[in-house]
């Protein structure tokens, strides 16, 4: 039985620069896996390969048994892969509610003809989407900004809005890129708890890129460490943090 996400010896380079040098990784249903490593280790590159933004030169990636390298990006989303972006991928000119509701695109209904005719199932789907979005905003303490234009809000809030949007698509696999960026310490702990709870409620697996080690150790079942595009360690968060290779990667090697 194939795992939900299987990454096998993926290689990606830009010209002469190797971003991913054959790491392999698997994430099971409902599992929360941290992906850590120093800056430039290839974490976001791996994310971009999984959501189809980059196409690796070799290696395979499967989601629920289906090979996704070369698949159109919108198809990958409909396989149940949701994601957030390191530098926020929200629609700046739209309200918070509209942004979150956009997350339900592939999970909701309403083609062109049905929408033009205002078919009952389109209205129902829209009402359900709105109710689900409002409930999620409530859970993430964002209800008070639901009607605000995104472009006017602070960075930490935008991170949570993006998370809400990704969750509304009911992903089986959620790729989260640095959610704690721009948050203060207390908020990070709270975010960790919220993440675990929301993922557990929805049965979503999470692959989490994060620099904040406190968040990683408290949230993740397992972590994988990338350095220069290679997987250098994998396992229990606390053990991995003690691994000499990992410490060397973060602090630099002795000459």
């Amino acid at each position, binding site marked *: 039985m194939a795992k939900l996400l299987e990454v096998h010896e993926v290689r990606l380079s830009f010209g002469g620069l190797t971003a991913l040098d054959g790491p392999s990784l698997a994430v099971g249903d409902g599992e929360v896996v941290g992906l850590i490593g120093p800056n430039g280790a290839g974490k976001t590159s791996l994310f971009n390969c999984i959501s189809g933004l980059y196409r690796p030169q070799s290696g395979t990636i499967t989601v629920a048994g289906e090979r996704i390298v070369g698949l159109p990006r*919108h198809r990958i989303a409909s396989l149940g892969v949701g994601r957030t972006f390191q530098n926020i*991928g929200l629609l700046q000119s739209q309200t918070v509610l509209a942004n979150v509701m956009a*997350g339900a*695109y592939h999970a909701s209904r309403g083609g062109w003809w049905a929408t033009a005719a205002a078919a009952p199932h389109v209205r129902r789907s829209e009402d359900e989407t709105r109710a689900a979005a409002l409930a999620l905003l409530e859970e993430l303490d964002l209800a008070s900004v639901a009607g605000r234009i995104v472009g006017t809000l602070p960075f930490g809030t935008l991170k949570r809005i993006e998370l809400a949007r990704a969750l509304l698509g009911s992903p089986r696999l959620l790729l989260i890129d640095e959610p704690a960026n721009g948050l203060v310490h207390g908020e990070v702990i709270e975010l960790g708890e919220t993440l675990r709870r929301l993922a557990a409620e929805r049965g979503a697996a999470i692959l989490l890129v994060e620099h904040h080690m406190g968040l990683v150790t408290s949230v993740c079942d397992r972590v994988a460490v990338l350095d220069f595009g290679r997987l250098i360690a994998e396992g229990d968060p606390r053990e991995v943090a003690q691994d000499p290779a990992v410490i060397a990667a973060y602090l630099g090697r002795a000459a």
Partner: protein
Amino acid sequence: MSTDVTAAPKARGEAPRRESVAAWLRRPRAPLSPPRWLAITSVVVGAAALVAVPLVNPSYINLTVTLVMIWTIVGLGLNLLVGFGGQVSLGHSAFFAIGAYAVAVGGEAGWGQGLSLLAAAVVPFVVGYVVGLPALRLHGLQLGLVTLALAMATPAAIRALEPLTHGSRGISIDGDPPSWMPLAHDQWVYYLALALAAVAYVITRRLAKGRLGRSFVAVRDAELVAETLGVNVWQTKTRLFATSAAYAGVAGGLYAMLLEFVGPENFNLALSISFVTLIVVGGLASVPGAVLGALFVQYVPTLTSDISAAATGATYGVVLILFAFFLPYGLVGLVRGSLGRLVARIPGRRT
């Protein structure tokens, strides 16, 4: 009593923040949210007035109001593509022409007005789809240039297709109502245009909000994000292009029925420029903006042409620049800014 007056600002606390006029004009604003009773009353009164117009007015008034409705239909479709979808087109005069000639050629072939108008929607839709397949791989400036070429080639293409279009001689059209209908020609085309504009308005509103509307805006503002949300970007763009071409085609068909004649000179580049001016002046990504823009392109050039025949082009140029700088949300933005607070204060249950 004078003490009250001087005390008032202190009692309110901080002094009101000054905002420059330019900043006020450029501020994005939420749509007006009238209470339900007011919205329904406005629609009923507006509809009644529009139905009454051709019964009480001379035909030249009906003609200009019909033209406003024709421009509104073009503007609704073009705003879906440009305002919501973010894809530039300077070539919609071509689809307007195809619609007009569909009605003209259909009339010659004895298809009847209903079938001809249907062809005026279907043929531009198909042509738009086929043109859009390769063209929408392009972005911004390049897409603008390709569609510009489309508009520039239209009069020449009409002349070249002589067997079908009779070249420069043009085609006369019978736009009269069915014989059992007690309406004059101008009244008949007016009501046709009113009905089709109303349908176009409602459909556009449905497409522009909700699940599809959000996907258009995502395609416009962040293509990659749209794709990771599951939006098939290319398909969305192509369908938007074809749909907006169908709107322009229907409008062109009505235009042909109204003038009862089509010739290549009716469909030059200036027509495309006026379409773009329409949506920019009315308000990009606003459905009611198409109506305000249509009023603008119908009446303002008529006013300025009293000064000089060449003034129309200059008016469009100056207006486009002024709106780009000072009124990025068009006349709709201005209306929202000036009436927003007033409308919000009117009591009643809101939807």
